[in-house]
């Protein structure tokens, strides 16, 4: 029962968030200098063409009317058509979203898993050289600009070693496509995006595992005759997972940031890149749609993480 209440409350929050995002972005976009009509017209266009465009897209109406129109359409699930592409915004984004989810998802999972393992390793040998090494590396890892790392990776593994493709998501020659091909294309972007999160997760995992190892029940389960490994895995690590999970929840937002950079470096056909291009070309409907769907994505994920957390930690009461 309380779980349903909780769910409902979270969904209401979610809707609120999305609405705020929508209004905020709309205001921002339309207050900004830079005339989309001019851009759409292009260098060669005369003023009259610009004027027609401005009228055609209702850009000549007062802001509040435009906003009203937009919100009402948005509430009916209609994000409008892209200025620059003429297609429905939803189609364009839905067409791009899988790529982004693939990139972000795999980085997130990889980051969480490797991070936890690394952290556990460090925690097992706290204070030792291994610990110092790992902790040092992980700080360096989350202090490195994703795009810079990406460039270096490209030149190392694509140009010089020619091991992985530098960009894109699939080969353009029909016969070369396939899962392996996609994986090869994923290698570099995922790597450069993951490093940052491995760093963060190792830090959290290390702290929480070490903390769990101090707990009394660890002694208990040693005393009853469990193997050290069993105690560590079933109890220390199991308890340490909680903070790691909630960390992962927070990371998703950062991941969207990483996504736009990574997608730009590796020309990954995701929505991060798409929305950025949309910003540059002032494609208002596309920008709005992108931001709104992006934040819906984030909220849904946060929700998911909350539920996982609840499943993992019986102490949480859903209030």
């Amino acid at each position, binding site marked *: 029962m309380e779980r349903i209440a909780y769910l409902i409350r979270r969904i209401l929050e979610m809707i609120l968030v999305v609405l705020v995002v929508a209004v905020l972005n709309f205001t921002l976009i339309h207050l900004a200098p830079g005339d989309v009509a001019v851009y759409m017209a292009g260098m*060669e266009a005369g003023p*009259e063409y610009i004027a027609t465009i401005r009228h055609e897209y209702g850009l000549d109406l007062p802001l509040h009317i435009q906003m009203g129109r937009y919100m009402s359409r948005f509430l009916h699930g209609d994000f409008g058509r892209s200025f620059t592409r003429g*297609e429905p915004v939803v189609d364009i984004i839905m067409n791009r979203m899988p790529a982004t989810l693939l990139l972000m998802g795999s980085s997130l999972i990889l980051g969480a898993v490797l991070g936890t393992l690394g952290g556990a390793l460090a925690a097992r040998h706290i204070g030792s050289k291994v610990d110092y090494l790992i902790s040092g590396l992980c700080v360096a890892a989350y202090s490195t600009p994703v795009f810079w790392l990406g*460039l270096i990776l490209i030149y190392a593994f694509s*140009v010089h070693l020619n091991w992985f493709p530098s*960009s894109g998501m699939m080969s*353009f020659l029909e016969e070369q496509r396939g899962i392996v091909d996609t994986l090869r294309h994923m290698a570099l972007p995922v790597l450069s995006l993951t490093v940052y999160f491995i760093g963060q997760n190792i830090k959290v995992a290390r702290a929480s595992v070490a903390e769990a190892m101090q707990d009394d029940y660890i002694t208990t389960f040693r005393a009853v005759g469990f193997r050290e490994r069993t105690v560590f895995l079933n109890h220390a690590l199991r308890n340490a997972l909680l903070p790691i999970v909630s960390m992962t929840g927070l990371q998703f937002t950062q991941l969207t940031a990483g996504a736009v950079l990574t*997608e730009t*470096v590796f020309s*990954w056909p995701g929505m991060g890149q798409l929305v950025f291009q949309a910003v540059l070309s002032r494609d208002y409907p596309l920008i709005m749609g992108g931001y709104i769907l992006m934040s819906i994505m984030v909220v849904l994920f946060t929700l998911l993480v909350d539920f996982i957390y609840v499943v993992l930690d019986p102490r949480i009461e859903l209030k």
Partner: protein
Amino acid sequence: MKAVRFYFIGVLLLLNCFSSGALAQTPNFGGTLITSTFGNITSLNPIWKYDQPAFMISQNIYSSLVISDWGIAEGAKPYGDLAKSWEVSDDGLTYTFHLYDNVYWHDGVKFTSADVKFTYDTVIKKKYPLASYLKLVKEIQTPDQKTVVFKLSEVNAPFLPMLANASNWYGQIIAKHLYDGTDIQTNPYNKKPVGTGPFKFVEWKDGQFVSLQVNEKYFREQAYLDKIIWRVYANKEVPQADFISGNLHLLMYELIPPFHQLKALAAKPGVKMWEQKSIYDRCIVFNHKRKPFNDIRVREAISLAINRDEVSQLAWAGLWKPNYHASCAGAPLFTNSNVRWPEQDLKRAQQLLDEAGYPPGPDGVRLKPVLIATAYLQSMVEVIIQQLKKIGVQVKFDLSDTTTWQSRLNSGDFDLTPYYIRFGPDPDSYGEHFGTGEARNFGKYSNATFDELVKVGQKTLNFQKRKEIYDKVQEILRKDFAYLPVTESGYFQFSTAKLHGVTFGDPTSYGKSFGWGGYRAVWFEK
């Protein structure tokens, strides 16, 4: 690793070359060209918008009525694409185009004059970009399936060259049977285009690549390549990487490394650099409508402050030469070589600023003009900023994306901006850049005699007479220091040495490419 890399190139070439043969300069058929484009392709409909990455592609899918090759004056002469021939009535008001008869759309439907009329009528009605070149078109008639007649409201010498030139960006002919009665902008065929061009659309993976294959039923001799693939890049760094590692055959002019490194890249084995003159220069535009540049002395001072050789050397590695003329090397026909901007003279420049009432402040700064630019000409701008410091002009540099830049240009919200003025394909372009109230006259320069001369120029058909007119035009611009020419410009592309007939550079492509992005003349050496 080198070994690895060249092995890879080898593999690609194998992919590309099917029949074997000795090194012959006679073009041979077959091969897949992997080329590059930057930014997002938004629509493959060539008429409704300005879409830099897309028009290179649509030129291979669609055909224009008339077309001209890139830049250089002789190449800029219009020639027919769908039009087999045309004649102009003696009064210069009627243009009659005779179309090729054996033209079919990729979906098999026959192409007729109706398609041409439909396309241009739509452009005019909807005021799509090409419209500004069809302003004078009173009516388009189609007496029969293979004839199109344009009726102009007044004589206009530049009409055809300008139309042909602009057709390189947009305004190729679209299929009436697919677009008639639909919303042009949202028509599904914008995503799976059907044209009459040398290549047929195959696949468009949004944000990744577009691929075309040769059109065997092309109304001319079919193109050499089997397949063309445009890889879409979101950044300008990685294409180079892919080109070096042999995963790209052609590096587009907008994706090349900084000029200083072009020689190094060109020197790599198996790499060929293509150079293409341009009808555009690189210059600085003053805002004539506000202080301080409404004062000719200030404009002159700036002109005296800059050192074109330094700009050419630092920003363009000497590849784009200094330009002192109100024209450029790409458009020699109408260049008046007696009109010359002065050499650098800092003393005189400061003197002028004193006279204009801008003495140096305590920090030695006389002026703080705002310069707006995009990343495109940033290096030139940075050099000039340093040069202007020497005469106490402290430039505030606003770097922004194209949108912001363009709209600030239109609203006149700037003091200085780097720009590119075109001196062709017809000298009438002086008008659009400096004529009072003209589209590209962002500096709001205004001079009655100038406007008068340009009008006369449009009505004049005789070459000698026109030349005299535009010589005067250039004198006026120089006298007023209307703007500040800095360097020539041009385009560089790179390709594997095995590639021939690349537009932008290879003269053998002229008259065969039907557009600057046209790859009809491109072929792989065995």
